[in-house]
């Protein structure tokens, strides 16, 4: 359980949770202001994160940067078009708008002591289990 990769991802998680909080992404009020176009600060957060990520991805590909753990070029992983992609994305959008929470921010909110996020987190956990089961059935036929 305690190995180099797990220690590394503990640090990554702490950094991500801290930044989600400083971004305001863990405030339901600020999420609702984004969805109602009243305050676009989170749009700028997401747009900047994607732009920096895209620029680094391009540089890594162009210059052949290698991953430290494998020694191979950093992989560019494209998620597949799953059968349930559109239906799943619609359900996700409904849940996100209904609660102002997404899987990453639910955890940071729990850390911040926002009690309601425990309910959302429990729902995400059970929903993920059910979703994995449905995915297996969809893949089989």
């Amino acid at each position, binding site marked *: 359980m305690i190995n180099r990769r*797990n220690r*590394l*991802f503990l640090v990554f*998680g*702490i*950094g*991500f*949770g*801290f930044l*989600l*909080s*400083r*971004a305001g992404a863990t*405030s339901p*009020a*600020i999420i*609702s202001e984004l*969805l109602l176009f009243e305050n676009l600060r989170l749009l*700028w957060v997401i*747009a*900047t*994160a*994607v*732009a*920096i*990520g*895209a620029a680094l*991805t391009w540089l*890594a590909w162009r210059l052949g*940067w290698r*991953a430290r753990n494998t020694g191979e070029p950093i992989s560019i*992983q494209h*998620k597949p078009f*799953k059968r349930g992609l559109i239906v799943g*994305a619609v359900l*996700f*959008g409904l849940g*996100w*708008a*209904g609660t102002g929470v997404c*899987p*990453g921010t*639910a*955890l*940071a909110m*729990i*850390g*911040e002591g*926002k*009690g309601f996020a425990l*309910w959302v987190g429990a*729902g*995400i*956990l059970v*929903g*993920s*289990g*059910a979703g*994995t089961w*449905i995915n297996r059935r969809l893949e089989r036929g």
Partner: protein
Amino acid sequence: MDTFATLIDALFSPLWTPVLVGALIGLLAFAQRWLADQPLSCSTGFANLAGYLKPGSARDPEGDWRIVFLVGIVLGGLIATLSDGAPAWQGTAAEFGRFYTALVPDSTLGSAIWWLVGGLLIGFGARLAGGCTSGHTIAGVAMGAPASLVASVVFFAVAVGTAQLAAWMLGV
């Protein structure tokens, strides 16, 4: 000295400049790929955790890091709230904002069911879509993945449409 004091104040303020936080999130997400060749991912970790908690299922030690990452996010939120100098969360109407205050049922039971069902939709939807706002939007779109771009557009279109419609119906 003034610059130093300003920097310290900024570090401990609850909200940072959007472009700064966005850039740091982008760098952190890329650091995962550079050091471990693993893109940012949250909802898959929830699925792994659900698998571990199911009685009689075998644990896959190769996926442990995803759950460790989720634990880290909780700790990150804790550190952020301990260092922002703001009062602790009380769950007041002002903290939830006028939209969620109007939308979520008032009673303790009603609101708990609301949050739980919302979470079920988020978890189930993320598994069907193969990712969430982390894996599809921040990581997937940055890598130019077409499926992630489609999923992200649907996430935002449905969330914005639902919120705008609900706000109009609630008159808030």
